[in-house]
């Protein structure tokens, strides 16, 4: 009897061992012994509980019945059925059951029939469910040797995708698909007018992301091959459109820039362009910049009606941290201080990390260059060679928890043989960052001493002494119930220690003192946010050209509604103090599959004074709902804030319901 019982147990052990290879997850459930029932334990593998067990020596079978539950300790998988039959107890143990449920990882696999032997388990009439997907399959096999779970003729839906595949391999949250068709339409891919077809695909049902190999986009009878691999987020699709950027020219020459940021256009080649449209401080002045980078070389061309700049550079990394670069810049026309410059630079950079606490990082940068340069300045053209070098050493670390001091020391010298001039400089910049709970404090000082002067302009290499200290502090406010009162307070201050040329005997002093606070709370069924800003340097130490301002923004949002006001005033202004009193609103309008939300911002202060420029903001958000997702297009422009553009596709979530899946009759459309 014990021998036969042992065979029964061996059969369990074989089945459990196979399933142990098939997964490595935590127990999905626990088998609870039935009162008066029996429990079979297999050391190192798991246990089975059941209400009844009987063996039939004539049929060479063992039948487990009544709430049969098998718990695999190594895998966490749990198999349940009302009846399980073990056959071939003497040789070639096999297991069979009907109406089984097998839980593995996040998957719950229900099957009409289960047939298993030592090599593998085959389930037919499979219905798979998880928190993130449901699926039907004609058959599923658990390979008890390799541990793979392979599904045949799988039809699967997530909240946003409908997938059909000839074959699939399930590995936890990842599903590898073969001969796959998928669509975001709430319909089988074969019936979708817009779908993706691929040779293989990897689907992460939790993220959820999809990576396709050998994929085509099919729209009606048209077909386009996609890059291989091609990946997308199954919740939000980033359209393959050039990303538009809107920014201010960092050189301050071309005003607002609208263009396309750097994009890969060919292997190893990246391309960017933008158009400068001037700004409020200068007349409209269109300029075009085109930039490309391939390998170690880059070229940058900027042109306008009255000026042209061409710059190119070859940067060649060498071994052991050495780099050599050759650059040429040619500017002509009406640039401020136009430059013609050719330079050859050799640089060396290295960073060390030391294991000693408190001196975690030591960085050293060194460079040397020589250049032939011509620059047009107000006093005429300066022509000559420039040769020099610089050295920078930075030490940083965390002395104690939350306190990170750093010290940067740098120096350099440049010689100008044609003018018998030399410019030397060196700087010291200590810095400390303290983090204590919700408080973060940064203190930084920079002193730069300069001896001699470059005959060239400040836009090229002429340096001025600097002696300034900066303090930045921020405090995160923890909110109460419902995050009421949660927010942040920040303060930024700068003190310039240099002598004030307009106030003999005095330092320039307070250059900057900005206070910012923001908070929010639930209100009137929506969310109310308040932000206040104060620039007090001009009020505390009035000087020509330095303004002060107080401002606040109050906004209330509820679903797609947005209402608010933004005010800004100069308390030191002798007369009308209001710089801005803007009210803004965005209200949604839904019509069928279309959704609109116009945005308008009006400066009431300017309007009341009948000044131009009272229309300070405008925008429009547009959403079109189709069977395949929601297309979002939108822009918003605000004076002083800038332009925002939105282009994207959202895929609407649909309930996970097995009834949406018809019985599998075919795989790939």
């Amino acid at each position, binding site marked *: *009897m014990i021998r036969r*019982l042992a065979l029964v147990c061996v059969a369990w052990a074989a089945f459990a061992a196979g399933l142990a290879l098939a997964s490595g997850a935590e127990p999905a459930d626990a088998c609870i012994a039935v009162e008066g029932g*029996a429990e079979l334990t*297999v050391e190192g593998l798991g246990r089975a509980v059941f209400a009844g067990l009987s063996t039939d*020596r004539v049929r060479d079978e063992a039948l487990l019945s009544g709430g049969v539950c098998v718990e695999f300790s190594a895998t966490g998988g749990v198999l349940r059925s009302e009846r399980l039959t073990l056959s071939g107890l003497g040789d070639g143990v096999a297991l069979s059951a009907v109406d089984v449920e097998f839980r593995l990882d996040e998957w719950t696999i229900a099957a009409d029939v289960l047939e298993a032997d030592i090599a593998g388990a085959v389930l037919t009439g499979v219905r798979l469910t998880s928190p993130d997907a449901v699926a039907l399959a004609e058959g599923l096999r658990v390979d008890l040797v390799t541990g793979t779970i392979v599904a045949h003729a799988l039809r699967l839906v997530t909240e946003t995708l409908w997938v059909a595949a000839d074959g699939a391999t399930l590995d936890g949250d990842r599903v590898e698909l073969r001969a796959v068709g998928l669509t975001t339409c709430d319909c089988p891919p074969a019936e979708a007018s817009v779908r993706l077809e691929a040779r293989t695909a990897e689907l992460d049902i939790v993220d959820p992301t999809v990576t396709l190999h050998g994929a085509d986009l099919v729209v009606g009878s048209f077909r386009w091959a996609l890059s291989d691999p091609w990946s997308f987020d199954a919740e939000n699709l980033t359209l393959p459109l050039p990303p538009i950027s809107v920014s201010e020219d960092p050189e301050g020459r071309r005003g607002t820039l609208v263009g396309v940021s750097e994009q890969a256009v060919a292997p190893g080649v990246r391309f960017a362009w933008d158009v400068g449209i001037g700004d409020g401080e200068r007349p409209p002045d269109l300029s075009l910049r085109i930039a490309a980078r391939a390998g170690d070389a880059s070229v940058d061309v900027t042109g306008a009606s009255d000026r042209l700049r061409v710059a190119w550079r070859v940067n060649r990394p060498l071994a052991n941290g050495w780099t050599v670069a050759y650059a040429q810049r040619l500017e002509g026309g009406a640039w401020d201080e136009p430059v013609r410059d050719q330079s050859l630079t050799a640089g060396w950079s290295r960073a060390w990390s030391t294991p000693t606490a408190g001196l975690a990082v030591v960085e050293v940068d060194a460079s040397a260059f020589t250049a032939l340069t011509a620059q047009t300045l107000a006093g005429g053209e300066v022509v000559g060679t420039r040769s020099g070098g610089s050295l920078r050493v930075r030490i940083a670390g965390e002395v104690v928890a939350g306190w990170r001091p750093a010290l940067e020391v740098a120096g350099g010298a440049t010689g100008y043989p044609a003018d018998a001039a030399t410019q030397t400089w060196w700087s010291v910049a200590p810095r400390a960052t303290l983090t204590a709970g919700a408080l973060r404090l940064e203190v930084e000082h920079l002193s730069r001493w300069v001896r001699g002067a470059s005959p060239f302009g400040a836009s090229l290499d002429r340096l001025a002494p600097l002696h300034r200290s900066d303090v930045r502090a921020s405090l995160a406010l923890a909110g109460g119930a419902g995050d009421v009162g949660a927010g942040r307070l920040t303060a930024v201050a700068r003190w310039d220690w240099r002598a004030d040329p307009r106030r003999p005997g005095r330092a320039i002093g307070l250059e900057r003192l900005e206070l910012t606070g923001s908070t929010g709370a639930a209100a009137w069924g929506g969310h109310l946010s308040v932000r206040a800003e104060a620039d007090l340097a001009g009020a505390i130490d009035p000087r020509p050209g330095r303004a002060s301002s107080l401002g606040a923004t109050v906004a209330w949002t509820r679903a797609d509604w947005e209402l608010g006001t933004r005010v800004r005033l100069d308390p030191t202004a002798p007369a009308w103090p209001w710089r801005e009193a803007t009210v803004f609103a965005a209200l949604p309008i839904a019509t069928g599959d279309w959704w609109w939300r116009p945005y308008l911002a009006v400066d009431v202060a300017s309007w009341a004074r009948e000044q131009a420029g009272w229309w300070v903001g405008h925008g429009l958000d547009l959403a079109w709902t189709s069977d395949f997702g929601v297309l979002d297009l939108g822009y918003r422009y605000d004076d002083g804030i800038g332009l925002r553009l939105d282009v994207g596709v959202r895929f609407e979530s649909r309930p996970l319901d097995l009834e949406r899946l018809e019985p599998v009759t075919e795989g790939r459309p």
Partner: protein
Amino acid sequence: MRLILSWATLLVVAAAWAQAGVAELEAIAYGRQRIDLASGRTILEDGGELIERGSGVRLVAAWIAYAEGVEVTARDVSIEGDVGFVDAPLLTIDLVAGRLTASGGVAWRREGLQVAGETLWFDVDAGVVGLLGGVEAVEPDASAAEAWIELESGRVLLLGPYAYADGPLVLRGGEGAALQLDASDTDAGVVYDASTAVDADWLAVVDAARAAWEAASEE
């Protein structure tokens, strides 16, 4: 399987003792031998041996009292024979009722077998033997609260909590659980079918035997 076969062997021996007349027994006294005229019992106060002539099985005890055709009582008993070795602190054979009781912790060992239980109960007329209380078999590795064997049919009933262990495998039943084992001969030898569904008639037999044992225990 060896455990069940060993139990069956023990039962055959017990049956032989229980059904044998004292006249078939050879008594050897190690010391004083006293006859209680009132009860008619012969008492081997310093211990002795009883040898069943038919099987050659020998009972050795530190104290033996027997009354011809009535009963045998022995203390610190060891039985030795083809069946192996059985040790029990107390042995009582009721020759009138046909019942044998070994109690106080019964141990039985032979080649391939090492089993113990609190009490061994044998009802000759019912043909049922029970091992009651803390049934533990070291070899093979098994345990049960009770084990009942029907001699004629070979049916075995284990009452939970019970456990069978063979290598890394353990089959357990909790309190109230029962496992029936049915033996049958095949070309490959004796095989057993196991079932947690116990035959109703077999369960009735066990219930009756158990009631008889409880009644005898109260006496």
